[in-house]
């Protein structure tokens, strides 16, 4: 029990104090980037890791959020808070428009629909030059004080990321989490217990659109300039891979996946040269060796440390208790 309390406190303290112990501005920038990615991935995790809908196109929603923020805050000159809110709202709306026709499709076709969406967004951004700057791109403004320094921006991202992690954690640990996992692992069971499958899938997809839009605003702002090339399709695949490597049905796993996959190639020079090869190799190793991902690996290690007794005992119903439990519900 001590471990369970201590770990989040230590990790939280480390994250809050990061600007003081990060070795240089580049590491701080990486931490900002991980945070912005995580805002998107945390929402996407409910779609991919929990309800099992394989979206590879969230980079399109990220781009929409980034451009919405750049246009509203930069071109139109509105307050950045309004820009972030609009980026989230537009992201959610686009999630709804994408989800409505595509979430009824079976897995493979759904993945193709999200892929097509990402490609279309990229083309629209190029075509609407008057609004988006076309291939030249747009400058993205930063945030006002006290978030105008690199440290301040980092803390802003930390606050938003923490809030969204808390929201998804609540979804995961209560009834909705079980319902989404039922949709992922057995639609027949989900229907039999009364879960409105399509509506539930659409709800979390819209939520993931919202977080992707907000992530786009944060991401655009820390990049300070966006072009269509910022949002290459590989980035969408990268988000997806972070979740698969992290483990389905886990929140800690995909977070570790995001942090490791973002930071490692940047911090370890030889890995940077490998580029996508590194991601590919890591994905292959995880799928072959620990198909349930990092999250499950942690669980298994914890179980090793404190093994639970797995004894086989014959089933002995307690009929009076059963009758009381059934009657209690009916009273």
């Amino acid at each position: 029990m001590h471990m369970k309390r201590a770990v989040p406190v230590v990790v939280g303290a480390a994250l809050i104090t990061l600007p003081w112990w990060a070795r240089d501005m580049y590491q701080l920038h990486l931490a900002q980037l991980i945070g912005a990615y995580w805002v998107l991935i945390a929402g996407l995790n409910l779609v991919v890791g929990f309800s099992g809908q394989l979206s590879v196109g969230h980079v399109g929603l990220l781009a929409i959020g980034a451009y919405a923020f750049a246009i509203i805050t930069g071109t139109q000159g509105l307050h950045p808070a309004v820009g972030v809110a609009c980026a989230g709202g537009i992201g959610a709306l686009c999630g709804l428009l994408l989800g409505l026709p595509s979430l009824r499709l079976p897995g493979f076709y759904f993945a193709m629909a999200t892929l097509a969406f990402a490609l279309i967004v990229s083309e629209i951004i190029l075509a609407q030059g008057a609004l988006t700057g076309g291939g030249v791109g747009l400058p993205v403004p930063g945030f006002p004080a006290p978030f105008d320094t690199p440290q301040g921006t980092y803390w802003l991202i930390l606050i938003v990321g923490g809030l969204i992690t808390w929201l998804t954690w609540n979804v995961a640990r209560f009834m909705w989490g079980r319902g989404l996992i039922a949709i992922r692992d057995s639609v027949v069971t989900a229907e039999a217990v009364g879960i409105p499958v399509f509506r539930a899938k659409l709800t979390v997809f819209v939520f993931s659109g919202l977080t992707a839009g907000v992530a786009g605003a944060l991401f655009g702002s820390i990049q300070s300039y966006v072009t269509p090339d910022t949002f290459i399709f590989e980035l969408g695949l990268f988000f997806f891979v972070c979740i698969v490597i992290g483990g389905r049905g886990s929140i800690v796993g995909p977070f570790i996946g995001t942090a490791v996959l973002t930071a490692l190639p940047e911090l370890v020079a030889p890995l940077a040269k490998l580029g996508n090869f590194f991601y590919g190799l890591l994905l292959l190793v995880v799928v072959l060796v620990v198909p349930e991902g990092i999250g499950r690996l942690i669980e298994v290690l914890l179980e090793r440390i404190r093994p639970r007794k797995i004894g086989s005992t014959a089933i002995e119903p307690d009929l009076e208790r059963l009758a009381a439990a059934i009657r209690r519900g009916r009273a």
Partner: protein
Amino acid sequence: MSSLQARDVTKSFGGLTALSSVSLELRPGEVHGLIGPNGSGKTTLLNLFSGYYRPDAGTVVLDAEDLSGAPVQRRASVGVARTFQKPRLLGTLSVLENAMLGGWRHVDSGFVGTALSSPKVRAEERELRERAQELLHGVGLGPVLARRANLLEHAEQRFLEIARGLAAQPRFMLLDEPAGGLTGAEIGHLGAIIQVMRDCGIGVLLVEHHTDFVFRTCDCVTTLDLGRVIKRGTPQEVRADPEVIRVYLGA
């Protein structure tokens, strides 16, 4: 008196008539057995009750509500639960969480309330957890509450399916071959659990090949053959019926 009824239901697949004009009434506090040879239409009838098929003709009715065209989910919300021939559990979740999943229909909290962990969500969660725990202790799974469901033995999976169904607080329970693969002692426990459900006023439909178990457990037995009802009555009447003996029980 409320009841779950199939009224003159007909269902065919391609040119094959799986059920032709079959009626069956399931009453609260009654265990109704459904037997017959393979291909006689038992599973088709169960799937009509549980909403996976729609009847070509006839209706499925609960009280005054016509459920024939209603989606599967509607069954859960009006109080019809079921178990599956091959247990369908969520392997990565614990036994307790699998049972709690059955209580979906009693959770009003929407997505936003859940994400914000509103007091109502937490109260519902607590209530559901307690109910599921009591049910699991009741069916004999108390010692394995925290175990991942993919580590359960066969009998434990079957009993967990029943607990999940009961977590919905159903008025009617459809059991699809619940005795399949159980040992004699486990079948005894299953029978006792079904008696408890009946005594608590739940109507139980028991689709089962294990005829001794059916005759021992049921108040009323319907026998199907080639998509038609050939005999309905008390276990004694059905067991002694020459037609049932000829097509199903054997001499």
